[in-house]
């Protein structure tokens, strides 16, 4: 890996997360991929190692790191399993809105349990008819006295059902379109808040994906995040900060598959030689490694820009997610190619990397949506000139 001049603490985080991955994630990744159970035993290890609160402020029990620390940990975990990594990374997605927009009481109430790993979190915006077009959302929240009443459903919610803390977007004023959406903090167990079916997925199968169903769900007024009408701003600002995490997941998955491919190419003999001695294989490995390093450099660069306190980074955030996820799909597909027939069967690890990589091009905005974000930003910049 290129020397990214990480601080001593960041190197420490990387080494610890690598140890967790090698000792606690790799041995169980095939099992959870098969059973689709939630990897609570690994979450417990992450909690005991102080990893769950890596990016949360110290005053709320976290380690006080930023997006860079989140990225380092997510990448390492994803080298072992892109699904198990989500127990950590998707919790960050559910936690960031509270960190960014929560008031002091909300932060005090919800962040410490997430930082300690006692609870995991989730973020809910997607609905069956509102994917890329989030403004088509149907879920409503109506203020009645001291609480809001939520009705509707969310689907494809990562950590859904296993998380205790949820940030959910619902329409408080449908007539205002995108400006009529608001964000709420929900807790598992609230009356009228239930879970629907668990999805049977292509990849990231160690991660749970469920429907959230609201039937006259009473949410206390103080659980409104920011103000009414801020729902989409909360979402966009959250995604701007969380997308480097998806980039890191993609980089980790790709690196995991490259490591496996290099090892395999040295052991596999054909035509009387190891296949790694063939230029055709060497060229593939060289391309894969170069593409991974380029994406990693972009992801790290954006994470550092965010942590430096920059204001406008949504274009770069979209770029690093786009670049890393497209790269991961290509690299993991090539890893399967290097394994040949063995790459296509589940006895070997690379088909899983390929299945896990696919989601990174889809969630938190598809690659096409990232291009929209980047394209619109370019035009906006040109207009300002």
């Amino acid at each position, binding site marked *: 890996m290129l020397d990214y001049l990480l601080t001593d603490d960041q190197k420490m985080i990387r080494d610890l997360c690598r*140890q967790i991955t090698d*000792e606690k994630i790799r041995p169980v990744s095939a099992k959870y991929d098969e059973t689709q159970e939630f990897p609570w035993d690994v979450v417990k290890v992450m909690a005991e190692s102080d990893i769950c609160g890596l990016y949360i402020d110290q005053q709320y029990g976290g380690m006080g790191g930023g997006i860079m620390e989140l990225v380092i940990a997510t990448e390492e975990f994803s080298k072992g399993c892109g699904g198990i990594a989500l127990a950590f990374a998707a919790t960050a997605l559910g936690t960031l809105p509270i960190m960014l927009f929560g008031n002091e009481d909300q932060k005090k109430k919800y962040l410490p349990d997430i930082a300690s790993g006692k609870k995991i979190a989730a973020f809910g915006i997607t609905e069956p008819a509102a994917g890329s077009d989030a403004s088509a959302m149907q879920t409503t929240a109506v203020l009645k006295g001291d609480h809001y009443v939520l009705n509707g459903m969310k689907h494809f919610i990562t950590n859904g059902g296993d998380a205790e803390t949820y940030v959910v977007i619902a329409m408080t004023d449908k007539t205002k379109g995108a400006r009529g959406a608001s964000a709420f903090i929900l807790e598992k167990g609230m009356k009228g808040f239930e879970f629907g079916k668990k999805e049977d997925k292509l990849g990231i199968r160690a991660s749970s994906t469920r429907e959230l169903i609201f039937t006259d769900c009473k949410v206390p007024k103080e659980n409104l995040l920011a103000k009414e009408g801020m729902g989409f701003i909360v979402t966009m600002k959250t995604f701007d900060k969380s997308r480097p995490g998806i980039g890191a997941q993609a980089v980790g998955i790709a690196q995991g598959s490259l490591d496996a491919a290099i090892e395999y190419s040295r052991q596999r003999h054909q035509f009387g030689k190891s296949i790694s001695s063939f230029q055709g294989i060497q060229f593939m490995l060289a391309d894969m490694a170069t593409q991974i390093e380029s994406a990693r450099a972009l992801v790290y660069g954006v994470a550092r820009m965010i942590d430096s306190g920059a204001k406008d980074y949504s274009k770069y955030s979209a770029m690093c997610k786009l670049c890393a996820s497209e790269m991961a799909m290509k690299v993991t597909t090539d890893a399967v190619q290097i394994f040949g027939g063995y790459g296509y069967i589940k006895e070997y690890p690379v088909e899983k990397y390929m299945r896990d990589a696919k989601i990174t091009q889809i969630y938190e905005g598809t690659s096409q949506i990232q291009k929209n974000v980047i394209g619109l930003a370019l035009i906006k910049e040109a207009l300002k000139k």
Partner: protein
Amino acid sequence: MKIVVCMKQVPDTTQVKIDPQTNTLVREGVQSIINPFDVYAIEEGVRLRERFGGTVTVVTMGPPQAENALREAITVGADEAVLVSDRAFAGSDTLATGYILAMAIKKIGDVDIIICGKQASDGDTAQVGPGIATQLDLPQVTYVNKIEDIKDGHAVMHRMTEEGYEIVQTSMPCLITVVKEINEPRLPSLKGKMKAKSAPIKAMKAIDMDVDESRLGLTGSPTWVSKIFTPPSRPKGEIFEGEADACADKLVSTLKDHLKG
């Protein structure tokens, strides 16, 4: 409860090479690790603190670089670390080592329980733990795989034997040696790692302890090594070469001949 864990830094046994000229361990370039059995001792010390409160002090006797092993113990929860190190200790056998560690523990003072791994992976003697207990005139329980309870100045524990286990009650303070069945050691924590970076390591030299100099190092070590040698390796097996089917036939017929033979 004041808990002391004795630990040793050993060469990583998965990488050990023997110098064919001198028949001794090649230590250069070999990574050092905490003796694997001591990792369970440290974990049990930390668990006892979590159950009953108190502090965990890790102690090692060794060269200055053994400090790294002590810092590693802090990453998994040890509170304090003592490095017992002096040129006068060089060449100590198990008797002298047990004596020196006992004197160091005496200096630490008011210890309730001393925990050691059952043996070190380099020497494999399993003598130092019992040696410390003898020097300190403390009861000892070896091969402990479970500490049931500690109260009213007594501890009840399970001691693993080849046939099963014994339940032993002992008065406190005491010394125990633990087997790897006792627990599953945790991974380091980030806070532990940060603490370990700057934690003070207390150095203890011969003059800091109340020791009889004739019992230290080579002078205090009645053991002498007459010869170290690599036992002859087993004769090579027969290797059949050629087509897999033909080799398999040959293998089966050879095995049959052996059985008849």
